């Protein structure tokens, strides 16, 4: 199906474990983003990518790692999960039109992660 998908939708893990959240989009959008949503903070950007093999830090990158070997995939890895990383994670993508600044972002359904 066309669109942007995330997996898993729900994940419970323990402190210190490595966790990878998957994001896949079928539009061939250039830009992809990872956000976390926490009560009282709205959405905060973790990492983003302008194209395959190009990634950059956002507002709250510590404790996270990303890669983008293919345009359609943008996995987010928590190398050693902590309780403070309990959150809802959203992936988004947007196309690049003349620099891309005017194109809206399309969001996936989210992954609810609980770190015990």
């Amino acid at each position, binding site marked *: 199906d066309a669109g942007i998908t995330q997996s898993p939708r729900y994940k419970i893990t323990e402190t210190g474990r490595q966790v990878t959240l998957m994001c896949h989009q079928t539009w061939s959008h250039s*830009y992809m*983003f990872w*956000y976390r949503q926490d009560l*009282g*903070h*709205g*959405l*905060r*950007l973790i990492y*983003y990518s*302008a194209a395959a093999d190009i990634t950059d830090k*956002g507002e709250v990158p510590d404790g996270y790692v990303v890669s983008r070997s293919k345009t359609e995939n943008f996995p987010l890895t928590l190398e050693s999960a902590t309780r403070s990383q309990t959150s809802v994670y*959203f992936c*988004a993508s*947007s196309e*690049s039109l003349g*620099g*891309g*600044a*005017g*194109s*809206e*972002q*399309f*969001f*996936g*359904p*989210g992954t609810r992660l609980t770190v015990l």
Partner: protein
Amino acid sequence: AQSVAQPEDQVNVAEGNPLTVKCTYSVSGNPYLFWYVQYPNRGLQFLLKYITGDNLVKGSYGFEAEFNKSQTSFHLKKPSALVSDSALYFCAVREGGGNNRLAFGKGNQVVVIP
């Protein structure tokens, strides 16, 4: 750095009454402004955007927003609210010039009372 402020945590409105969700922004240069809506346990859905041109922007589900440069505001409006409009609304801003990142406000919970 760009930022947005959504001053009200929650907006309560009776069904059929006008709905306004407030947003003010701060950017250097021309602003690119967006509104998104989030229903429970769902991702954000794009409603509308202002890039340039007419200050009144029309979007999905009967929503519109008015860009006011002098007041640095981009308030979301709907003439007649529906119970199904109850959701979380986010304002976002991106700086012009090729930076594709968005800064989101903290969100407004809208409750439409039947």
